[in-house]
């Protein structure tokens, strides 16, 4: 087993900073990697050492296995934490590290490979008694095959890319024509996005909730789950608000989902932290979606309700330590909600925004945790994912967590680009959200109610006055005294 005495963080932004914080807390020396665009980033500042990677476009730097292995060798790092995204679910990366004698803080290449293939993972899930959505057993050969499968399942159906993710290569069909068209489009999108045109068809669950189970498994066969996270609030098939526990699950469903997630993890000899995603219908029937073989963006909500540091657990597991606790030692305390702050214009179809962080004042408050990698003055470029930060609030109950998160969003001052902070606050304030009446189509269904309200008259006046007074060349000290102004325009 590996010593994990010095860890290279193969990521950037908020997740690199979050991993570095745990490394510091554990007294483990750290190495950051960065592309020139991130040379002055918070992650570079917070690491003990940082190594530049080259790449064009910039994301290529963080995807370059050979450069990252070389950076480990150069700095003496004997372990790598991949974070999420980038190389975190590339079996070849785990293998390359293994070949160089470097520990990958994550599961085995085998587990990554099996769970990375949606058709393969679903076969395995069925084989070990995990509830799956009807359909999806076969790769679809052509449009007519798609229609035959759809008839067996009954409409509506969903056509998905086998190698997919993030909503790409996904189509919903309610009749034969949509099914044929959806097959062609999903398959060509899958080829373009993933280099793999294989698609499959499943029964489409209407108004589904996205609920996932966090699992932890050590190298000695101990597997526990850390309960669920509900991540139903999504835009463009990406999560924006996540919470634990789900306001919808009862104890029996929670226990059944947890048991199935643990069974699936055992079936692939899983090691490290992983997440088994389910969709849940209005009758609390749940169906396996996929397993993510890495740390999730939304892991902090689980940390806040269980008191565990999941990154620290991953490091202990990579060192070969046993978990040291059983399922019955774990409990949910209070409620936690996370909101993802994106540089995007929620009122213009969630179009990504760029800009510069001219002013940054992040909130503090009881039960509030902020994950970010921002520094004032930095550029927000289109070169990377537009997620800026995560705000996570914990409360003794759901209402308190919502109230604290909403206050945190109102107090988040990030000027110089467009963010979705106010949109997120509007979702939290919606009565259907407060009632826990959530599903993955929530944002689309409530689009009108979630639209930005124009400032009222007094607010608009105050804003105009602030803008007029703040402009340096119209500073009141330089403006003309009133008698002159009355005469007319004095200077531009």
């Amino acid at each position, binding site marked *: 087993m590996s010593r994990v005495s010095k860890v290279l963080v193969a990521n950037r932004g908020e997740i690199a900073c979050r991993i570095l914080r745990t490394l510091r807390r554990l007294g483990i020396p750290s190495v950051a990697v960065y592309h020139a665009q991130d040379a002055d980033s918070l992650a570079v500042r917070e690491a003990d050492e940082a190594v530049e990677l080259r790449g064009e476009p910039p994301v290529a730097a963080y995807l370059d296995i050979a450069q990252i292995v070389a950076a480990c060798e150069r700095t003496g790092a004997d372990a790598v934490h991949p974070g999420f995204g980038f190389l975190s679910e590339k079996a070849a990366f785990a293998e390359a590290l293994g070949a160089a004698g470097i520990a990958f803080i994550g599961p085995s290449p085998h587990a990554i490979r099996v769970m990375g293939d949606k058709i393969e993972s679903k076969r395995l899930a069925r084989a070990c008694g995990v509830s799956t959505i009807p359909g999806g057993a076969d790769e679809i050969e052509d449009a007519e095959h798609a229609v035959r499968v759809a008839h067996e399942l009954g409409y509506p159906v969903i056509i998905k890319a086998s190698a997919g993710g993030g909503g790409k290569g996904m189509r919903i069909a309610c009749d034969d024509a949509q099914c044929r068209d959806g097959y062609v489009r999903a398959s060509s999108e899958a080829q373009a996005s993933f280099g793999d045109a294989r698609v499959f068809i499943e029964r489409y669950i209407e108004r589904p909730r996205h609920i996932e189970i966090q699992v932890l498994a050590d190298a000695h066969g101990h597997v526990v789950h850390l309960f669920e996270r509900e991540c139903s609030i999504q835009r463009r098939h990406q999560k924006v608000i996540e919470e634990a526990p789900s306001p919808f699950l009862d104890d029996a469903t929670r226990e059944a989902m947890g048991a199935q997630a643990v069974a699936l993890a055992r079936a692939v000899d899983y090691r490290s932290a992983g997440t088994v995603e389910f969709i849940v219908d209005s009758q609390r029937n749940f169906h396996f979606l996929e397993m993510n073989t890495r740390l999730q963006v939304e892991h902090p909500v689980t940390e806040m309700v269980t008191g565990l540091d999941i990154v620290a657990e991953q490091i202990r597991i990579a060192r070969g330590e046993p978990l040291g606790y059983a399922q019955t030692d774990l409990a949910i305390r209070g409620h936690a909600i996370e909101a993802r702050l994106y540089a995007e214009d929620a009122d213009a179809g969630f*179009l*990504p*925004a*760029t*800009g*510069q962080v*001219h*002013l940054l*004042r992040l909130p503090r408050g009881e039960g509030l945790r902020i994950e970010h990698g921002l520094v004032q003055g930095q550029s927000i*470029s*289109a*070169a990377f994912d537009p997620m800026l930060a995560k705000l996570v609030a914990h409360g003794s109950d759901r209402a308190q967590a919502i109230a604290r998160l909403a206050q945190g*969003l*109102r*107090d988040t*001052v*990030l*000027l*110089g*680009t*467009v*963010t979705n*902070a*106010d949109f997120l*606050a509007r979702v939290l304030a919606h009565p259907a959200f407060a009632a826990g009446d959530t599903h993955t189509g929530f944002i689309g269904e409530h689009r009108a109610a979630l639209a930005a309200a*124009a*400032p009222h008259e*007094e*607010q*608009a*006046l*105050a*804003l*105009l*006055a*602030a*803008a*007029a*007074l*703040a*402009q*340096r060349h*119209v500073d*009141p*000290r330089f*403006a*003309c*005294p*009133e008698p002159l*102004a*009355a005469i007319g*325009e*004095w*200077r*531009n």
Partner: protein
Amino acid sequence: MKREIALGGAVHPVTLMRRGDAATVDVAGRAHRCSLASCGEGEHLLRMDGKTWRVWIATHRNRVWVHAFGRAFELEVLDPLDRAARASGAGDCTVAAPMPGAVVSVGAMEGERVRKGQSLMVIESMKMQTEIAAPRDGIVESVAVKAGASFDRGATLLTLKAGD
């Protein structure tokens, strides 16, 4: 001094007059007594007609961002000369990015005479390619971006000057 300030798609004429430490801001013919006191680090106390709000302000060129009432607003202080030139359709003209993205290719060269509607460059945003066409006849004065460069919404891509 008269200004036009854009907020949420509407343009408001605003006149600012100094009066001692405070100022009078005249919006749409009605005067409001205002002051803005800096508390440091971008934080300000904005007073208007006997009310006070805590606001955060950042400025960059003619853009002003104000965080107030629990959310952020972007305002633009319009230059009267720019607006006059824009309104007349003559003189120099800036071709601005309609959305953030990256330049795929640049078809126009500096000094080139272009016709209205002619393709000047191709940009990519959200994995969609869009042609940027000349808004009117003119001569390409400068090309502000190169192929591969990324830009924000509203960034200057290219400027045109009058044809003669």
